[in-house]
């Protein structure tokens, strides 16, 4: 089985700083993979490098086997490589429905504007925003804006979805709702790369975890193992605490 998304030694430098350094991984079809790492590890830069916001300075991005390293963001979207933003990016003065219709019209492949609207309405119902379809996007609450971001990406009928902290700023109940939604998206056959800080989300959703630190991939494996990985704990908490933690674990 071929990977739907593959990174080969991807680097992205800003001047002398290597925000992403020599990262390689594969995302299989239908998989949910989590990307974790401390603040400033380069997670968002990696997503930007994949979607063409920042073209990688070295390495290759392969999508469905084809080289898409030099693509522009709009080309990524049309190909079926959609993303959400950590800081939500709606079109504030348009209605919620129009926001999603824009995605369907430009990123999807509809026959007409009317069809784009129908598609948009279906995605809004799917994420649970059908009742606010005619409100301006600026009037939505944060959890609903996150859902709008999801609906916008889904309207493009993506094959791969890159979720950049869709759960940040949500409370416990809202996160449960979001988890359920992400599971239902995966059930549609969309492969998902999810950037997350919340271990609850990582542990319950992903089959595999990638750990990024200082722009480099330092560990990769099943979520339960990663939580106890020495290098991962060091990256988050420093070597001193990692040592103490392991002693305590051994003692317990």
């Amino acid at each position, binding site marked *: 089985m071929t990977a739907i998304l593959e990174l080969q030694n991807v680097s992205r430098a800003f001047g002398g700083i290597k925000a992403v350094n020599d990262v390689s991984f594969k995302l299989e079809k239908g998989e949910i993979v989590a990307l974790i790492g401390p603040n400033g590890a380069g997670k968002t830069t990696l997503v930007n490098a994949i979607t063409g916001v920042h073209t990688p300075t070295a390495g290759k991005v392969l999508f469905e086997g084809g080289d898409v390293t030099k693509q522009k*963001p709009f080309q990524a*979207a049309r190909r079926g490589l959609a993303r959400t933003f950590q800081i939500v990016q709606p079109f504030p003065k348009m209605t919620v429905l129009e926001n999603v219709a824009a995605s369907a019209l*430009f990123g999807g492949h509809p026959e007409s504007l009317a069809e784009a609207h129908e598609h948009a309405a279906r995605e809004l119902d799917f994420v649970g925003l059908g009742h606010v379809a005619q409100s301006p996007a600026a009037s939505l609450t944060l959890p609903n804006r996150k859902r709008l971001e999801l609906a916008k990406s889904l309207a493009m009928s993506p094959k791969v979805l890159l979720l950049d902290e869709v759960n940040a700023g949500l409370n416990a109940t809202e996160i449960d709702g979001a988890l359920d939604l992400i599971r239902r998206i995966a059930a549609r056959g969309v492969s998902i790369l999810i950037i997350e800080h919340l271990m609850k989300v990582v542990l319950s959703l992903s089959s595999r975890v990638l750990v990024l630190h200082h722009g480099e991939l330092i560990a990769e494996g099943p979520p339960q193992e990663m939580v106890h990985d020495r290098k991962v704990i060091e990256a988050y908490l420093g070597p001193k605490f990692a040592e103490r933690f392991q002693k305590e674990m051994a003692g317990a």
Partner: protein
Amino acid sequence: MAKKSPWPLIAMALWLAALALTPVLLGNYEVRIAISIAMFTALALSWNIIGGFTGYPSFSTAAFYGIGCYVGALAQRSGVPAALAWLAAAAFVGGVSFVLGAIVLRLKGHYFAIGSIALVDISRLVVSSWGEVTGGGNGLNVPLLQGRPPEVSALVLYVMLGIVAAAFLANVITDRSRLGFGLRCIEQNEDAADMVGIDTTRYKIAAYVLSAVFPGAVGAVYASWVGYIDPTDSFDIVMTVQVPVMAMLGGAGTLLGPVVGAVAFTLLEEVFWANFLEWNRAIMGAIVVALIFFLPGGILKLDWRAILYRRPRRNAAERKAG
């Protein structure tokens, strides 16, 4: 999307017809004002596509207009009939804006605004230094249109009104098409527009070219009308500021806003020129400032109902309190 109302189209058709009647019903002075109104309406409508729909504060109107003046004049001097020269000017300016747009549209916000102003000055400098072709600072004489003065004015007015109609149709089509939807997305959030699959560069260039061809034609027609052009007059920095102010005065990004704004501004300016010869620029400045503070959405975005019914409501509130 909601069904678009036909009223802007009807209102515009009536207004064009009213302007077209001025040569029949009124005198030379009124015809001259009608021509000014038509000219600025065409310019403001053109600006609306890049400045209103797309939200890119372009100040290159005078560059397009000035290049149009010169291309039209030069074509006519080399024997091209007037009508063809006007079309040639529009086409040439469209080509220029395509090339320049590919460069300056990489800039955003204030940077784009400054870059687009620079285009006006650069064009002016090129035209004034390239003496052999453009006559430099001496200006150029343009072959006059044949006919008695009133007939010429009427002809110029009808041609200008034709350009206005074309520019208005360009606005309507843009507003109701995929292009307009994409441009509105860019206006509200360019990064997000890119991310939903809009080829933002292509859309912006299309908007820039659409905003350039009509000013090019207006410039060429103007040159034929006045019979003489020079660099300072053709590449007028004041015009480049006036046109966006007109569009915003009426309501940028709406269909009728630029039309209303151009009429209001031209008439106000006429009144101030006539009555306060020394103070008119200062008064214009005050209007611009007032516009930004009190009317950021333009005349058409005002809540007219609230203004008209404010008094009764306040009275009702007082009665309740009392």
